[in-house]
């Protein structure tokens, strides 16, 4: 069945290319964090400019997935894979957008207060670790890594709460812009981690067909 073999090959290529999109998103996040921690505006500008490539690649992947759905009428595991691929690529694309938002905050004028920067740095590390695990779960089709992401996200949520508590104590003339930009950056990192968790849930559904993973994803 040559056609079927070609279909399987196309699915495999899509799986790898979705991960390429994941790499692009991951690089954007790590670039945004480097820019934030090192106050490097040129790195921040690179991240912002690079998002167009991520978006363009996302669109080509989406078109490929739609074409496979239309032409091959996939069912069962193939259907779960393609629907998951569409979801996962959208999550990577949004991760890239969040990284851009963090990079933009680097260009803004606000006081880089050490405790705040420390907490944001910690959040960035955690978000990147989760994103790396999400990529591994997708690429290796690893159910254990996929289903463990939710639990690991709690640590990052805790750090974000710490950041908010700390920001609420800030006073003085620089406080409003600090609170505004640091909170936005923290919120974006927290959302990046959420996308990683959703990818994990999506991989769990793809591998098991268990609809409770879809419910978890919607929360």
């Amino acid at each position, binding site marked *: *069945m040559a056609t079927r073999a070609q279909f399987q090959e196309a699915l495999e290529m899509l799986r790898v290319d979705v991960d390429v999109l994941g790499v692009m998103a991951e690089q954007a996040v790590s670039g945004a964090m480097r820019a934030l921690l090192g106050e490097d505006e040129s790195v921040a500008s690179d991240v912002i400019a690079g998002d167009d490539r991520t978006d363009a690649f996302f669109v080509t992947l989406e078109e490929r997935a739609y074409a496979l759905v239309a032409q091959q009428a996939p*069912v*069962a*595991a193939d259907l779960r894979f393609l629907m998951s691929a569409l979801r996962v690529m959208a999550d990577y694309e949004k991760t890239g957008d969040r990284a851009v938002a963090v990079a933009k905050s680097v260009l803004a004028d606000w006081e880089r207060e050490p405790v705040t920067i420390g907490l944001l740095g910690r959040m960035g590390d955690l978000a990147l670790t989760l994103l790396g695990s999400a990529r591994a779960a997708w690429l290796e089709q690893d159910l254990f890594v996929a289903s463990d992401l939710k639990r690991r996200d709690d640590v990052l949520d805790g750090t974000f709460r710490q950041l908010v508590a700390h920001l609420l104590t800030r006073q003085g003339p620089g406080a409003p812009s600090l609170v505004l930009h640091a909170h936005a950056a923290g919120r974006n990192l927290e959302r990046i981690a959420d996308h990683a968790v959703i990818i994990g849930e999506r991989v769990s559904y793809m591998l*098991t067909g268990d609809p409770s993973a879809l419910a978890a994803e919607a929360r």
Partner: protein
Amino acid sequence: MTPAVHPTFTCRMSCGHRRSLPSASILMTNSRSARSRELLTEGTEPQPEATVTPRLAPVGRDTVAPEGAPIFEIENLSVYYGTFRAVRDVSLNMRKGQITAFIGPSGCGKTTLLRSLNRMHDLIPGVRVEGSLRYQGDDLYGPGVDPVVVRRLIGMVFQRPNPFPKSIYDNVAFGPKIAKLDVNMNECVEQALRKAALWDEVKDRLKTSATQLSGGQQQRLCIARAIAAQPDVILMDEPCSALDPVATLRIEDLMQELKSDYTIVIVTHNMQQAARVSDMTAFFTAEVDAEADRRAGLLVEFDRTEKIFTSPGDERTESYVSGRFG
């Protein structure tokens, strides 16, 4: 003491009438033709002496099963052609008001099983059915069950449209006539054609030959012919395999409209058709039967259609529905 409530058989044809029959006589008759005619005539009162064998189902159960109640209960059913066991050990329940699809590769026994549901095999010498097949609680192969009555209550639509070389009207009127149903024939024909979504296309030429209709129209005529006999169940054996995609979609739409009145069982080779039209899907395959040392059809998986096509429980189903069989 509460008087025993007689289960009733209610006719749902809008052209007809509501009537009550003693439940034990739905499938059973003493003398086939005379008795069935008598029992299928409006106003027949319950006649205790008509009971040939005691009912196995609890007395008082409504024979028109509520939505979702089992209409066919199949247990360990095997069908033999002579010594060859074509289908082995099938167990599944089909529910009223649902469309059940049988899918599987050629030679997996799905058509054989479908034909055993209205005793079509009785007409082929050497065919034997073993196991239990209950229709609304009654043993379909029990003593005293009249196969003619069975085939009226459980109609069949075949792969190729097979209208009689008669007028459109006569094709539809055929069933009620031979069953001597007490109906207004013109109304009955119109209603059956309307239900089969054919009325508007043929109302001005009811007396022309059915063979002049297109393939899709002929198949809808065959459905109208089955409906006119006032069945509970319509069995369809690849009803769209000889039709173009537009005619196929019309039949599929029709099935959705009919399922509120009839339980439908469809055999199809078209995966997408099973996915589109059915509520439940049974996947069959053919594997070596250790007992007979030959390939025999068996049921692999029976579940909600949505489940079969998104996350089947058996690898063989997965391979088949996703086109990687063998």
